[in-house]
């Protein structure tokens, strides 16, 4: 019904009238195509190789740690016969009832008794077969069962590092030989090392535990979370939803993006100068560690939060504004709830990074030897990665496997956190 527009074709007058389509079937063309497909396959293989290499490296790392560390979770015990009746221990069984028990036990020479018993049972080198903290086990046994005091009893006490290593096939020849003899006599046993999960730092590798550092990490993370999460989310909301575009908000934006990439050690210097130097907060405290790490984590949360908020479709905001919600109501009723999963994943990833952070904490004194788990935010504490760093520097060879075991604990913690983040991401991804 509409007449076509007039066509003018003078521009092409010089071209040949007959069209010669490209001949795709010549040999040269076919060869070229084969070459292109070969290049395609090579490129694709290269990509696959990159993935496999990266994943392989991760697997290798994890397997190495696992192989070294799993031994740290087992310990070797020696069955030590102790003749309490004739030990010369001066403890009144009666004094072991009630609150005075600890004091009464502290006064008794369990150390001497234990080494005497060892010498009696295993010969002159008997005492060296036992862990330095073996007598503590004996003391515990007596505390639990005061009736032992009048009898002869066999108590399972931790073996010394040398014997423990020999039991795990890594000892020196003399220890190996000694261990063979003990094993032949049925006097040694191996088992899961519960002490490792319950105790705190120690100078004796057979007595160390990870719980102190773990608790320190928990407390530190709690402070970090409580400070960084609200501040991070609030700044993200402000910057994404309300901030006018001007030089000031640009400045804020640049600072935040920059802070997210500032080397962590600089935060350590900040903590040292400001929290310890200016505000005189206590050294080595989980609170200061948390504060420092919060400053480090906050930008990560802001960035994740902004991305999550940005991905809430604007139509939701329009809808709420359209029925007369105020900007604050729009954000708190609609945007934040919808962005929360994204914010949470970002938070968990930021927290995971904070959990593995070592360098800034070294600066603020969280590298101390602390033999009891911290009992508060201002109590001296250390954290898992610093504990790993400290143990890797210990004299005794028994600490090597403990270091790897601590690494496993840390990795499990982290993988759990990452897993949670992935779960959240998958669960809440794109619901509209």
């Amino acid at each position, binding site marked *: 019904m509409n007449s076509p527009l007039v066509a003018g074709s003078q521009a092409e007058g010089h071209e040949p009238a007959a069209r010669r389509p490209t001949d795709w079937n010549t040999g040269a063309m076919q060869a070229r195509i084969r070459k*292109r497909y070969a*290049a*395609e396959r090579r*490129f*694709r293989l*290269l*990509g*696959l190789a*990159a*993935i496999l*290499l*990266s*994943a392989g*490296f*991760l697997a290798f*790392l994890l397997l190495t*740690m696992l192989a070294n560390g799993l031994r740290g979770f087992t310990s070797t015990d020696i069955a030590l016969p102790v003749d309490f009746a004739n030990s010369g221990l001066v403890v009144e069984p009666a004094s072991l009832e009630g609150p005075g028990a600890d004091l009464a036990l502290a006064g008794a020479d369990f150390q001497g008794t234990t080494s005497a018993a060892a010498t009696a049972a295993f010969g002159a080198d008997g005492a060296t077969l036992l862990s330095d903290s073996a007598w503590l086990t004996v003391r515990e046994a007596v505390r639990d069962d005061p009736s032992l005091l009048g009898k002869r009893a066999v108590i399972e006490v931790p073996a010394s590092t040398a014997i423990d290593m020999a039991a795990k096939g890594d000892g020196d020849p003399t220890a190996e030989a000694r261990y063979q003899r003990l094993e032949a006599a049925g006097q040694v046993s191996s088992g899961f090392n519960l002490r490792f999960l319950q105790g705190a730092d120690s100078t004796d590798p057979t007595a160390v535990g990870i719980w102190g550092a773990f608790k320190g990490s928990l407390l530190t993370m709690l402070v970090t979370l409580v400070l960084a999460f*609200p*501040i*991070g989310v*609030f*700044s993200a909301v*402000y910057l994404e939803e309300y*901030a006018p575009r001007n030089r000031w908000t640009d400045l*804020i934006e*640049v600072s*935040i*993006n*920059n*802070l997210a*990439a*500032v*080397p*962590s*050690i*600089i*935060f350590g*210097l*900040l903590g040292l*100068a*400001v929290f310890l*130097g200016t505000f005189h907060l206590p050294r080595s405290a989980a609170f200061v560690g948390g504060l420092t790490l919060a*400053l480090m984590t*906050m*930008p990560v949360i*802001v960035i994740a939060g902004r991305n999550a908020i940005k991905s809430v479709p604007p139509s939701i905001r329009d809808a709420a504004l359209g029925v007369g919600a*105020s900007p*604050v109501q729009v954000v708190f009723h609609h945007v934040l709830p919808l962005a929360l999963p994204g914010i949470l994943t970002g938070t968990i*990833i930021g927290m995971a*990074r904070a959990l*593995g*952070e070592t*360098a800034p904490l070294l600066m603020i004194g969280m590298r101390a030897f602390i033999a009891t788990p911290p009992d508060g935010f201002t109590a001296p504490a250390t954290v898992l990665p610093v504990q*790993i*760093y400290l143990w890797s520097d210990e004299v005794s060879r028994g600490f090597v496997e403990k270091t790897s075991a601590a690494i496993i604990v840390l*990795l499990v913690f*982290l993988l759990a956190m*990452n897993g949670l983040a*992935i779960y959240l991401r*998958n669960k809440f991804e794109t619901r509209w």
Partner: protein
Amino acid sequence: MSSTALLFLVLGLGLMAWIAARTRAAAFADGGPRGGATRHSLPMYHGWYVALWAVLPALLFLGVWSAVTPGLINGAVLATPEAAALPAFGMERTAILVEARQLATGQLPGAFNPQAQALAPAFEAEIGKYRLIGTVLALVLAFAGGAYAFTRIRPDFRARTRVERLVMAVLLGASLIAILTTIGIVASLLFESIRFFSFVSPSEFLFGTQWSPQTAIRADQVGSSGAFGAIPLFWGTIFIGAIIAMLVAIPLGLMSAIYLTQYAAPNVRKWMKPILEVLAGVPTVVYGYFAALTVAPAVRDLGVSIGISSASSESALAAGLVMGVMIIPFVSSMADDSIAAVPSAMRDGSYAMGATSSETIRKVLLPAALPGVVGGVMLAVSRAIGETMIVVMAAGLAANLTANPFASVTTVTTQIVQLLTGDQEFDSAKTLAAFALGLVLFIVTLLLNIVALRVVKKYREAYE
């Protein structure tokens, strides 16, 4: 009354104010949003308005009060006759005063110093007095604030607007923390750095090629010649973080991203991506341990087997390799994002021309995504040059200016840790050098980030 109890009292007053105001506002006639006599805001907002008026001024006052009173109390105590015996000035006097206060408040079980014991009763009396005044004033303020706000409640009173204004202020305040942190970092680095530069000239520091902070730890110490040319550190940092690590991370990260976005099945991608991300989540101390004990010896053996007899077991290569692996996810996820952000129209355009996947990726997608990839690489570099523990544990401390990857080099961050955790005096040039190094590091990452942001931003605008 203890300060916690006072705090709860004030908060309790706030709660009462909230309830009272809400009830009163709810009693106003309800007429829908139009018409003259309509209530402007929901009762809840009136409640919040009054509660905030009751609580905030009182809390503000308490804050100021607790900051001011110690000075007043000290002044009052110093005026007592017991204080006459105190040493005139200096640390000891301060120490005694602090101790006396702690005794008075029961924080200390026993006295370090008998003079403190003597001052304690005076402290006790003054503290009691000021606490009473503070309590009364706080309560009065809470009542006055609440009452003032309560009288303002009217149907057309815009309580919601006021409350929301406060919420906005809080949000703005939160975002200012970032600036405060930046200022804090600069301040804490700048001051010490300036002191450092009074020992060592900036040009010597920035352009000297000899790093050997063997200055005297103490005045009488032997071996006190020192050289603070930071070029070997900068070089080491760049060599490990920006060259070796990037030689690992860029190809692996980029190719992984390409494979995952363009070739991998959605299921593979769903699994592989988080797995790769784990690489960035492994704590650096673990990498450090791994690098030092597993990778470094292997690298050394490799060096020896190819005839480099000087191969050190603390090689730049070992640290750089491990660091490169660590930052693969940074490169790959940024590359992933920016390749995905190339409009699919580009991809379709290329496929429609008869291009194969690899041609499309290499000739169209990558060039278009390049700015984003470059931005990601910049961020990865800034992460790498800030990395500490891997280098501390695996790369050694020798400030060599060498391009031999089997030799040992050191980095800025490692030296910061060493300088600050060694046996040093806090105002020796050696310690202060750590802050100067920190400052340089901060400035460099700042510049890298600004460049990265610029690049990413420019690229974003190109498609919108």
